[in-house]
């Protein structure tokens, strides 16, 4: 049997607006992913710990508070330091285009803004995993 794609959905930082994170988590579950919904107010360290423990392929973060330029680089750095730099870090929220570009240069995966169909994020993750498996 094919292994299900495992995704950790989390909300780092202090913000509690979890509508987007939950909708995306539900859509991924319905698309056949194994979704670990980590919940709210997680530090980057906690996220990394869970990602390792749950052996996920993808970390998906929802950030609406404007703290993305602090949090994404921090999580990315910790991923590399903890030997999971080969996993995908992606996410969504209220993130201006130029910040998305800056984060992409650092190595963060695609970030999705308001109005994105959930299937875009799902297809993106699927193709990322497929590409990785070819390597």
């Amino acid at each position, binding site marked *: 049997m094919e292994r299900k794609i495992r995704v950790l959905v989390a909300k780092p930082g202090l913000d509690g*607006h979890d*509508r987007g994170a939950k*909708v995306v988590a539900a859509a991924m579950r319905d698309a056949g992913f194994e979704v670990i919904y980590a919940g709210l107010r997680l530090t980057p360290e906690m996220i990394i710990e869970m990602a390792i423990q749950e052996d996920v392929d993808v970390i998906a973060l929802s950030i609406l*508070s*404007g*703290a993305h330029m602090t949090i994404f680089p921090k999580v990315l750095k910790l991923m590399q330091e903890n030997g999971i730099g080969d996993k995908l870090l992606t996410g969504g929220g209220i993130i*201006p285009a130029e910040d998305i570009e800056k984060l992409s240069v650092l190595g963060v995966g695609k970030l999705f803004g308001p*109005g994105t169909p*959930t*299937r875009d994020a799902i297809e993106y993750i699927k193709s990322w995993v497929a590409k990785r498996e070819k390597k």
Partner: protein
Amino acid sequence: MNKDMERVKKRRSEWEIKKNAQAKDRDIKFITVSSEPVELMATPDTIEDFNYLRDLGFPGAYPYTRGIHYNMYRGKLWTMRQFAGFGSPEDSNKRYHYLLKKGQTGLSIAFDLPTLMGRDADDELSEGEVGVCGVSVSSLRDMEILLDGIPLDKVSTSMTINSPSAILLAFYITVAEKQGISLNKLRGTIQNDILKEYIAQKEYIFPPTESMRIVVDIMEFCTKYISQWNTISISGYHIREAGSTAAQELAFTLANGFAYVKAALERGLATDDFAPRLSFFFNAHNDLFEEIAKYRAARRIWARHMKEKYGAKNERSLLLRFHTQTAGCSLTAQQPQNNIVRVAYQALAAILGGTQSLHTNSMDETHALPSEKAVKIALRTQQILAYETGVSHTVDPLGGSYFIENLTNKIEEKAEAYFAKIEELGGVIAAIEKGYFQSEIARAAYQYQKEIENKERIIVGVNEFTDEDEIIDIPLLEIKKEVEQRQVERLQKLRKSRDSKKVETALLALGKAADSGTNLMPEFINCAKSYATLGEMINVLKEKFGEYVEPVEF
């Protein structure tokens, strides 16, 4: 009358046969924003047992369906209250002076996430969030700067703060005292609606029971000393933003309202002493009629329950006064100028629904905090409604519409069914702990998203009428990085310069009061005066009360 009704029914069925034979509907679902089916048309028999005096009455009279004032906006226009706050206290202070100069009539303070979560600017978890979503206030010093030059006896101030609301109120009171203003002159609102935090916005700190105690402490204190202050703004806004339907917004909000009433009664307060100072805060989403029905039903339900269940005698206890904000969740990142139009329709719903105050969102809020230009357009939208469209000249113009009355009845029935369900679960707090509200809302949010993705619901610019290769060309507000550093520096300077003995004594007294169960407000004020910080006060209480962890539902 009855004979007339028989004739209407007969003619209606004849008409329906003709209609079905000759008219073909477009092949789409005709549903509201809340996914409720919509009737093509209502006729007198749709609301067969409609009783004007029982169901509507007159504006300013029980059950207030038509509005809470005799002459509504002829007497006084709604308050145009734009929620604002960002960056340092200096930055926000400048924005408030700007808004007051442009004709805004009330202040509305947005705090940043660290403040909302009771954390100081120099807290480890505050990194990257200081001054981003709102203004950073960690101590009385910040509040003094924030309110500098604003006459607190002349403006009414709304503060959107929940878990640490008592502390921010203590800061505000202390600044007013320093301006030489007596407390009974202060007018304003603190949101202080902790229940909806557990349900929707998730900015909780303590467990529900302890949080409710602080809420009632505030009610008790304000009833005695700041009689013009609205002690809770019972909020459906965030419930809706989290993805609920209109009926859920209405029902969960009013259920929370009744829970506060019960808690205050248990403390020994008298309904008519505190109920007049409860106010409400609703969302205005895209579905014009559904929203109007929601506001009308809200007034009627509140009045009936307060009168029949909670023994209110004072008329003011029966009045559901509410603020409205247009739906942030309805705004699109795509073609952001379209949001100006959405906001205008939503604002119209709020006015036709009889709101007391209104915030209109800015077009750019799916990208960043609003720029000055975008805020101005949002405010002008309200002014155009108020001064050009004529809608403010008349009261409840849709009252008596078969369609609207039916919609109002239906949403009221739905709310009553939810009240029964919540009761069955053991009340609001028990239902929160069981994750009931959270999963109801998550389900509705997912349903809405699926409708968009299946194109059963069209959102202009998002899943239809899209612009390929769109470039967003509106100016965005940028928060300067220095804000966090400046706030941290100011706070650390304060910690060194204040009388630390005084701070210690005040914090100790706060801890004691937490244990003994006496009212915490005087202690918060005392702490504020000593320049104890927000985080320091919250930490004392965290030790006493513990921290809440929610059940996870998605």
